[in-house]
């Protein structure tokens, strides 16, 4: 080929130097290798580009795909759920795969209604002491207003003071229930490298959640008296929870309230003494009532045993049937049982006595009819002997022999047993 060119042109050209050939070849080789490497890199990039489209979702997550910025899919298919094989999406900028944690709860403590405490006081287990005349500072002390008891109205100087003050601490637990609404409507910062979305959510939602809880507590608490706030903690918490959920729904935030817990509550420390006295009075009231109940229980037990109250009620109940009443009478104990038993014993005795007397008469009658005087005399004397044997004192009087008779004065004690009592020694 090179020779043909020489011929055609008619010119003699000197052949290229051997070094130039070698250089060109090496450049050519280098370029070939470079292109090969470039080709491999491009193939690797394409593979990496395609592989980067594979996405997985954890069990506590849901995902949405943004295709050119818009949520992809229709109906329920818009929300992607975890599955055993990965999803594939077009890499950015066509698609964006947004994973949203739905199972993880967001816990938030709200201290907006608690009195001011220094760090030292927060660590101390002792209750803070505040003199009665120290006012609350609205800038640093948190509290909510509660309504007064209606009966307290007559205590007021003015008609607009229908409230008390209460300190409380709350805990909100919520989670994302509607990932699409949450993503569309609730502002969170973009996730930076190394950050988790749940941490970003917790950080960015703190103000919103706190404000919503605060507002709900203010709105709910004015409906309760301070005593109701203490006694009906569950009801108040439920009320606050409903108000919080209502606000989240109103914002279309996609957040569901799991629970609202009132973790602490107290009256103002300035009136602690009065409230402690009130608690003591409640305890004293309960003690007094318990004592009275014990007395009632003992009294009824002593009177009629365990069925006493039931029997007393049944006696007033006109509809109580006889069988029921008899069952109660048979279960009777105590004093009433004693009275009934004595009556039963009397019944047995009087019947058996009558029977015995009748039998005795029947047996003795034939002999009496034969020798009445002797039988009567014998019975009579036996009876007199029996009586006099048991007598405490027996005084025998010799009848007067004269016709005029005689008068005898005998001092008889009303209680003959007292005669035998030794005289008390008098102190000399």
């Amino acid at each position, binding site marked *: 080929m090179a020779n043909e060119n020489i011929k055609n042109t008619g010119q003699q050209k000197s052949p290229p130097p051997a070094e130039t050939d070698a250089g060109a070849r090496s450049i050519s080789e280098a370029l070939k290798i470079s292109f090969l490497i470039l080709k491999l890199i491009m193939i690797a990039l394409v593979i990496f580009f395609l592989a980067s489209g594979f996405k997985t979702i954890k069990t506590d997550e849901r995902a949405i795909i943004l295709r050119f910025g818009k949520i992809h899919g229709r109906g329920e298919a818009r929300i992607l759920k975890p599955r055993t094989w990965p999803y594939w999406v077009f890499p950015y900028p066509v698609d964006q795969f947004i994973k949203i944690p739905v199972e993880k709860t967001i816990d938030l403590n709200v201290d907006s209604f608690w009195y001011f405490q220094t760090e030292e006081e927060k660590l101390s287990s002792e209750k803070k002491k505040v003199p009665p005349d120290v006012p609350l500072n609205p800038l640093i002390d948190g509290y909510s207003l509660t309504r007064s008891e209606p009966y307290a109205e007559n205590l007021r100087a003015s008609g607009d003071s229908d409230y008390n003050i209460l300190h409380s601490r709350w805990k909100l637990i919520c989670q994302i229930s509607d990932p699409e609404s949450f993503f569309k409507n609730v502002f969170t910062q973009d996730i930076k490298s190394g950050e988790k979305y749940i941490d970003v959510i917790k950080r960015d939602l703190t103000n919103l959640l706190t404000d919503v809880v*605060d507002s709900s507590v203010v709105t709910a608490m004015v409906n309760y008296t301070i005593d109701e706030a203490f006694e009906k903690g569950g009801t108040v918490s439920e009320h606050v929870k409903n108000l919080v959920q209502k606000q989240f729904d*109103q914002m279309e935030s996609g957040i569901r309230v799991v629970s609202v817990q009132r973790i602490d509550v107290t009256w103002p420390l300035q009136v602690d003494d009065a409230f402690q006295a009130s608690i003591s009075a409640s305890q004293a009231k309960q003690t007094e009532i318990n004592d009275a109940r014990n007395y009632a229980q003992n009294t009824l037990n002593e009177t009629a045993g365990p069925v006493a109250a039931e029997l007393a009620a049944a006696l007033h109940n006109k509809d109580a049937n006889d069988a029921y009443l008899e069952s109660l009478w048979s279960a009777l104990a105590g004093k009433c049982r004693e009275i009934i038993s004595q009556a039963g014993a009397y*019944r047995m005795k009087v019947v058996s006595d009558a029977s015995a007397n009748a039998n005795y008469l029947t047996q003795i009658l034939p002999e009496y009819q034969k020798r009445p005087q002797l039988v009567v005399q014998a019975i009579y004397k036996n009876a007199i002997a029996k009586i006099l044997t048991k007598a405490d004192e027996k005084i025998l009087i010799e009848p007067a022999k004269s016709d005029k008779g005689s008068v005898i004065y005998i001092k008889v004690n009303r209680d003959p047993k007292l005669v035998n009592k030794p005289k008390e020694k008098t102190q000399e």
Partner: protein
Amino acid sequence: MKSIAVAILVVLVVIVLVMALISFQVRQTESALVTTFGKATRQITEPGLYFRWPPPIQQIYKFDSRLRVFEADLTETTTKGAVPIIVNTYVVWKIADPNKFLNSVGSTSAAEVKLHSQMNETQSNVIGQYSFSEFVNSDPKKIRIQEIQDKMLSSLQNSVREAYGMEVKALGIKQLKISADVSKDVFNRMRGERNTITEKTIAEGKAEAVAIRTQADAQKTELLAAAQARAKAIMGQGDAEAAKYYEMLQADPELAMFLRDVEVLPEILKDRSTYIINTDKDPFSLLREMPNLQPKK
């Protein structure tokens, strides 16, 4: 073959570059405003891919249209009847009209300044229409705090939407307080109320205890009376049963009564008895003399 591949690559690169110049995305969380030579020509509130003229012909302004929260400062205002009250309100808002927002506000921080001013005004106007007893009252039916917040929300919604292109989605009173001096008065009243409750509690306890004891005593009396009535009936039954044997005594009533007397007399005189007896009566006549007995012939 190689040149075709290169050509496709080049075309793809060119398409990507051209698309980057003439298109833009609006995310689901955003809204956008397109200006042509500085004039707003298109407002986009729906997400998706849109086309544009390249700069400097058209400029794109994007806004995050998600909800943001803004808290006002703790402010003292007065209710109807000039009762001072300290409130702190928050709002949740978003950009609803990008064009109006850009023209009248411009940025989020500027929006918050506007909101603050509007909230103070709304707060003052609405709270001034209600008396303090409508915030908190011993009669729950008179409490209108929810209505007050709804009214503040409605008023603020109207004013900021028209003026600034912002939509207020929620509003709430997050702190409702009283001045420091008033809190001292409240403490005095609370103390008075609590003392009344304490006295009432003690009196209730005593009254209830007395009622329980009285009832127990009454039940005891009733039960004993009932038991005695029942006992009397049992004894009556006994007497009735015993009476059946009296028929047998008809054989000789005089002897029967004698026997009865003989039976009961020792029982009656068994205790604490003193007898004064004449010795001419048997068997005490034995004390006077030996009886003169003769065998019966």
